[in-house]
């Protein structure tokens, strides 16, 4: 104990006190998420699988000549797996399933990532503005939301895809993004409504802070954990969006492999009964990927909510 007469603190002591304060302060969001992953072994494995898989398909697809891969090779007609060097066999056109799976995964995951980024950004901005301003602005934004909710989404996307002639992965992503921001915007709006009533927002308004600054620099960071969780979970959902439409034949063009077009091989009764390797790997891949990504999302959600954390005190 130091006596009261010693008013000044020497630099050594100050440093020690600062370090102690930092140790006891709330850890950063990244640290919390990381410790949560470390506490949950399956989640860590899921994270590693997903990251490694995405990196693998991205790199591997650089070494695959897509147009050459999609050429028909009659000698390899429905090769069984492991026959003639075809690791997962070949489809009716003699095209290697393995290569299609790699390029298709890259395309499908790429579109899902693009869709998630665009639709989440739009949905977050929409929800924040609608929830913060309230009143007239909110009323109109909600009417637009209601109208969009009424539209039969899958049908509208199919109609739009048919109208646009030379579409590619980017136009497709944009079309999907027109419809998939709705859920995010609703969620963010309700949280923003609650957040805008808090004192810090009132204080900022009173002191004359710019509205945009309040929305994006003050409210948004405060609901960032919700945004991260929602984005991760919608990423898992969005994988199903493009693949589903490609499955129906309204997604990526036929010559572009996607996980959906691979599963569409199952539309042929011969394929689904005898030549399982033409479609089953893609189906299993989607199932595993979606489960793993949503599991990661659950872990992040848990770490955002202090009462549910499993890594407390570790």
């Amino acid at each position, binding site marked *: 104990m130091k006596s009261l007469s010693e008013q000044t603190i020497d630099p050594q002591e100050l440093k020690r006190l600062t370090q102690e304060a930092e140790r006891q302060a709330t850890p950063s969001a990244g640290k919390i998420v990381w410790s949560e992953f470390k506490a949950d072994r399956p989640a860590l494995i899921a994270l590693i699988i997903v990251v490694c898989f995405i990196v693998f398909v991205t790199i591997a697809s650089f070494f695959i000549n897509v147009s050459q891969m999609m050429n028909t090779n009659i000698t390899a007609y429905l090769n069984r797996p492991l026959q003639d060097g075809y690791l997962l066999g070949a489809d009716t056109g003699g095209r290697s399933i393995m290569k299609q799976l790699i390029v298709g995964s890259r395309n499908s995951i790429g579109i899902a990532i693009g869709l998630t980024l665009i639709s989440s950004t739009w949905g977050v901005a929409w929800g924040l503005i609608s929830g913060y301003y309230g009143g007239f602005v909110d009323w109109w934004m909600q*009417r637009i939301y*209601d*109208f969009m*909710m*009424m*539209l*039969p*989404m*899958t*049908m*509208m996307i*199919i*109609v*739009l895809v*048919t*109208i646009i*002639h030379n579409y590619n992965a980017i136009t497709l992503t944009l079309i999907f993004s027109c419809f998939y921001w709705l859920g995010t915007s609703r969620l963010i709006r309700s949280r923003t409504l609650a957040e805008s009533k808090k004192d810090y927002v009132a204080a900022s308004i009173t002191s004359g802070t710019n509205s945009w600054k309040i929305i994006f620099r003050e409210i948004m960071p405060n609901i960032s954990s919700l945004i991260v969780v929602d984005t991760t979970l919608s990423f*898992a*959902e969005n*994988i*199903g969006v493009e*693949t*589903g439409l490609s*499955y*129906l034949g*309204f997604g990526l063009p036929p010559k572009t492999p996607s996980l959906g077009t691979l*599963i569409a091989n*199952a539309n042929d*009764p011969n394929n*689904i*009964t005898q030549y*399982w390797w033409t*479609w*089953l790997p893609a*189906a299993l891949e*989607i*199932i595993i990927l*979606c*489960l793993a*990504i*949503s599991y990661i999302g*659950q872990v992040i959600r848990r770490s955002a909510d202090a009462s549910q954390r499993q890594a407390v005190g570790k």
Partner: protein
Amino acid sequence: MWKVILRRVLIMIPEIILLSILVFLLAKMMPGDPFTGSINPRAGTAEIHHLMRINGLYDPWYQQYWNWIVHLFHGNLGQSYQYHESVANLIGQRAENTLWLSLFTMVLTYLIALPMGMYAGRHEGKLPDTIIRIYTYVTYCIPFFVILVVGLWIFGYVLNWFPTTGSISATASGFSGTILSRFYHMLLPGLLGALFSTVNIVQYLRSEVIDAKRSDYVKTARAKGVPEKAIYRHHIFRNSLLPIAAFGGYSITGLLNGSIFTESIFSYPGMGLLFVNSISYRDYTVITALVLLFGILNLLGTLLSDIILGIVDPRIRIK
């Protein structure tokens, strides 16, 4: 309450008008014409132009839209170019199939989800609750169409338990035979659809039960000596029933969206399959009618749910 419903219905009118304009314009923008391929292949472009003209396809869009709306109010949805049948008839036949399948799926969903939600809430944190949570989590993340394809493969082709296409077998005869055959064809798509759409109801019911367990009215009932079983059945379940029923309206959107996949995968002749086929034939009249119909059904589903929720919770009524 009536005022609220009236206002809610009035808001729907501009939405429906906007939807009809949007749908109409989109259909107009679709490439191709409906005649090439359906008439004598030797007919030249002149003949197609003639057909387009007499069918009014060269009029300005607002005039075509107006004609379409006027016909719509007379119950005339136009002729399908592909099926050579009036669209109203065509959709009527298919709508029946979709209606039965959707209804069947919905009933199964409730039958599966209600006991699960009650059970999970009652035994919160125990093993059955964990199992149910894992089940809802797994069914929630896997894309619906993948499940349908895998389910069709396992139960339809490998195990051969269920028929894989159509809504009725060609050999079915007699009243009971027809009904049984229809039921048999709906069983697999209905079961898969129901098993994979329980998540909302189960989670809602579970949290309701958990909240209710600690509420005063349940404590009172317990103190009066009401048996535990009766508390869950008559007190807690009754209270959560209406909000759960409100999910029914919202789930119409999901069922209709899902019908496009379900019916394509099981070749079940309903509206979803009709839509997919009409898109590939560029059958505008059918496409517009179906999109409009689906939109209106979505709207009615939401209306129904909002009304139910308004009855349950007066706070929702204020606007």
